Each structure stands twice: as C-alpha cells, then as structure tokens.
C-alpha cells in the first residue's frame, strides 16, 4: 500500500471538515465537522505509525480520540447554552462581538 493513499484520503476528510465548519449554520453540525477533521488527523497518525513501524503514532491517536471526546462534551454543552439563550442553535445569531 502506498502511504499517500491514506494521507490524501485524510486531506480530503480534513477539507470536507473545513467546509462543514465554515458553511454549516447549526452548532451540532459544526461540531460534527470538527470530528471529521480530528479523524483525518488520526488517520494520518496511524498511517505514519505503520509507515515508521513505531507505536508513537497510535499512542497519540488514542490521545486525540480522548481529547475529541472531551471536546464534544464541552462543545455540546456550549451549543446547549446557545440554544437556551436564543431558542435555536444557529451560530449566525451569535454576533455580539460585532464591531
């Protein structure tokens, strides 16, 4: 197997994630797109781990999975707060920082 087939798949997933983060209006969907990006990173890590025949990549993939779980927890709590304050979870409404 080529190393690049994994890396390019990962790049594709990452960019899909970027598109989702930028274009989706709903907070939950934005978080899902972030998960896509994190998974892309993990595929990279595991692919390099296999390529270099060392376990470090896998260890860090595990760390990333853990952090992603924490991130989803906090992120959903924030989305929930947004929903409670504005009765929907659209990120468009959150523009109090408008200059």
């Amino acid at each position: 197997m080529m190393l690049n087939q994994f890396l390019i798949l990962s790049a594709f997933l990452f960019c899909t994630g970027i598109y989702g983060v930028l274009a989706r209006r709903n907070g939950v969907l934005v978080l899902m797109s972030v998960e896509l990006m994190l998974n892309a990173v993990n595929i990279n890590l595991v692919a390099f781990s296999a390529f270099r025949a060392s376990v470090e990549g896998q260890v860090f993939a595990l760390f990333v999975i853990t952090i992603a779980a924490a991130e989803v927890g906090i992120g959903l709590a924030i989305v929930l707060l947004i929903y409670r304050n504005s009765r929907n979870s659209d990120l468009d409404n959150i523009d109090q920082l408008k200059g």
Partner: protein
Amino acid sequence: MLAEYNAVVPDVAFWIIAVAMGLAAIRVVTTKNIVHAALYLVVVLAGAAALYILLTAEFVGWVQVLVYIGAVVILFLFGIMLTRAPRTDTDLDNNQRWAAAIVALFFMGVLIVLLVDAFGAKHIVLDDNLQASGRLTADFVKHGHNGQVVRPTVGSAIFQQYVLPFEAISMLLLAALVGAVALARRD
C-alpha cells in the same frame, strides 16, 4: 501467489472503504437533514476504524468504535434532540457556502500537491516484514524466551514512556467533565 494476494486485498479493501468514507463525509456536510448527518458520520467513523485495523492498529480501531460510534455519536444525537433541531429537510447552511467551498478546495489542492511531492513513492510495509526491517524503536523491543523480538504493544508505550501525558489527559477529561456539567446545568 499468496504474497501477491496479500498485496492486493488490502488495496481493494482500502479503496472500497475510502470511497464510502469520502461519499459519507460529503453527505455529512451537505445533507439537509440533521439526523442523517449524524448517521453519515457513523459511516465515516466506522470507515476510519476499518482503516486502523487495515493498518494493524487493532487497538486504536476498536477504541475508535467504542468511543466514537459508541459514545460521541450518541452525544451528538442527544445534542440534536436537546436543541430541538428540525428533523425534516431544512436549509442548514449559512450564506458563505461558496466561499467556504472555495477555501476548502484550495486547501485540498495545496495539501495534495505537497503530499505527492513529499511522499510520492513511499510504501507502507506491514507487520510481517517489520522484524527484518529492523526499524523497531529500541525502547519498546522486548525479547521473548528464545531471543525473538516481540512486537511492542501500545499499552506498554502508554504506561511507560507516555505516562505523564496520559495522566495530563486524564486531568483534562476530569476538567472537561466538570466544565460540561457546570456549563449545561440549569440553575
């Protein structure tokens, strides 16, 4: 013959998984139904788990299944229900869709050019040849009874060399737990 077989099967499996993942990923960010998005996300996550197993990272693969598909997706579904997101087809995108698409495609273009340039001819050599290649990280090589090299395990790496980051992450999880409760509770 067998070696050839071994070389082809993973490739075929990869391409099936990759195409499924790519399509599902596109659907995650384009579907008009938010519940469907979550279900497509499951496909992507499961595909990633399959790729890990393909790359002989079985442990990471199963953790991916347990944590992501088992917990994170459920969290998402809870989030969808708690925020009373519309379950029917609605326009879920904001008005910068085209700009976002351009940025993402541009990004991908740059990445692919760089990747092809950097790793164009590199192959992944899997398990069987590891011992012969002699590239095992010396720290984790253990010798069995008769001196043969035993494949290092993820567990010993986490609990030996990376025990401090591991503990730090456990603190982070605790903080996230407390933080999520503090943020989300009604008072």
